[in-house]
């Protein structure tokens, strides 16, 4: 495998070996998740107290991912969701800080969310996943998202396509917006909720249906594999979308900053729109016209 041409001095590991590590760490976290919520026939109750799922299992998954990565790559940097204070500004600050460190030290930066979709996870609504991305110079090169309930591993390598369980996947655009399925977030923050309401009201009459599934990483993966045509959300952190964005792009779709006229997406952009390469333009236009972009 060729070395990255982006960083001349650093020894960047081959992307394939970065991906293998990403997959291994995602699978490790995934089994911790499912064993904590498994319905044991003998015991007949889930093993872990619901409150512990967030306070214990989430950090346990993050620790497992970090140790798996550092085992293979002891000098890499890792930005993990669990290690950052809640809130958009803490998240953005942490990202900036790690990105500049990554650049100045010429080291790859991993951006991870041990359990994306924690509300689902706590309720045993089985749609949540570890999301793992590796970036070189601020650009995501390798991505892995693992649904441990469905046993589905979504992966991508920059310029080498996207896969589900090792088999290539591709977005599946519909012929018109009326036949398209749009996914949305239903975020808790007051401003985000208002944006979602405006967007929902504008889109519902014009699309086949709308889905709110509760895990950004998996909704991005599902756009990539054609189960959804579009996913947009107003306010997400880097670890929610870093891996999914690459998977969508490598599956022939498009990941963009929602507000960006030029369709740019840079890691750290909080407002996103991912689509199958076809319906995104129109969805974005509808959202813009409905006032979602206004302050």
């Amino acid at each position, binding site marked *: 495998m060729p070395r990255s041409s982006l960083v001349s001095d650093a020894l960047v590991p081959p992307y394939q070996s970065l991906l293998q590590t990403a997959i291994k760490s995602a699978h490790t976290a995934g089994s911790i998740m499912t064993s904590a919520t498994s319905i044991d026939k003998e015991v007949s109750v889930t093993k872990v107290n619901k409150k512990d799922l967030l306070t214990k299992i989430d950090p346990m998954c993050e620790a497992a991912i970090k140790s798996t990565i550092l085992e293979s790559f002891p000098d890499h940097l890792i930005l993990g969701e669990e290690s950052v204070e809640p809130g958009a500004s803490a998240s953005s600050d942490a990202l900036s800080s790690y990105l500049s460190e990554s650049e100045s030290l010429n080291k790859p930066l991993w951006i991870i969310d041990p359990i994306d979709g924690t509300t689902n996870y706590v309720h045993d609504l089985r749609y949540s996943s570890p999301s793992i991305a590796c970036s070189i110079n601020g650009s995501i090169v390798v991505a892995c998202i693992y649904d441990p309930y469905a046993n589905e591993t979504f992966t991508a390598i920059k310029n080498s396509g996207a896969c589900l369980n090792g088999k290539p996947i591709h977005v599946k655009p519909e012929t018109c917006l009326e036949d398209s399925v749009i996914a949305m977030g239903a975020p808790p923050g007051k401003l985000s909720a208002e944006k979602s309401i405006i967007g*929902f009201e504008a889109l*519902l009459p014009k699309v086949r249906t709308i*889905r709110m599934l509760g895990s950004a990483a998996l909704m991005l993966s599902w756009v990539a594999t*054609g189960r959804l045509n579009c996913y947009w959300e107003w306010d997400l952190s880097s670890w929610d979308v870093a891996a999914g964005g690459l998977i969508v792009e490598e599956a022939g779709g498009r990941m963009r900053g929602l507000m960006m006229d030029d369709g740019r997406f840079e890691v750290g952009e909080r407002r996103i729109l991912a689509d199958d390469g076809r319906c995104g333009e129109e969805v974005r236009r509808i959202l813009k016209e409905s006032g979602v972009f206004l302050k």
Partner: protein
Amino acid sequence: MLASISFVGSAALFTGCARLLQRDVDDAASDEDYHDAVDDLDDVELYSRLLSSDHEYGKHLRVAVEAALVAGRGDYYTHLSTAGTIYSTSLSTTSKSNTSDFFTEVDVANEKLIIERIKASFPSHAIIGEETSDSSTPQTISPPTWIIDPIDGTTNFVAGNALTCVSICYAENDECIIGVVYAPKLNELYIGVKGVGAWLNGIPIRKLNKDVPADIKSCNICVEFGYDRSDGIDAMTNTVATIMRRNVKSIRMLGSGVLDLVFVALGRLDAVYCGVAGEGWQSWDYAAASVILKESGGVIENWKREEGGEWEEGGKFDIFGTSMVCACNEQVRTSCEYINYAILVSRTIY
């Protein structure tokens, strides 16, 4: 017949079903003894005993479970496994009332398959099926009646999304007695028998570790609309807007009404709005799931509407109703009383 189906999936489901359908059960006990012994029985034992031909509804349950499993495998499962991969082939779809409301060739074939199985065992029973019903189909569950939906969550099914299921209900004397729901890609079989219990893959649902939401802010609420894209649309968007502004824990739109109700039974969701403008939701969406739900401690009720008048709460659960329903957990219901046009299902104990 079942030997010809290869079960790809968890050992637990297979073992549960094998036990379910093939185990010989000691049928010496009379009905009276059986009822007295219910509390002492291990639930798995009870579950298996249900399927002995001695039990009043044993044969009905066996027919429903077999039909659900057979319908859920074959083309249904093949499509779900291959959609979204390089192996997928496209399904032909046919629109019903508008392009959001459609059915596939698998819907039609599977409904036919289920009907044939029911008729083979119960030739005199009435059947209400989503694909075969029309305005002439009687809307009653007074005589022995089966209510079936071969594929609930058709949009999900076509997209290869796992949130889709087969739903089969047996009803008589205006009551839903048996509910069987099978989600092949989730590898989950849900069974409810009125007055007996409900199970997920053989595990009693009442024994699952479920939290009771303290208030609306802790609730995980699901909204599911029908296909109306005309007048009813304001009601739909208003409902979502209101719920979002109420600052609930989370809102979901999953795409399978039957699974939404089952998930309330399981504690994966706390409440479901089943259609908000008198559109979309039908008897086959509620029937089987309502048995599973009620046997798991959940509640489903109708809102009653005066002709041309205001919506008001109250009203016995009526699977043919398009009138809207109010909820159960008092706190959740009170918080939702501002929201009109709602059927609210909650899993908390009355």
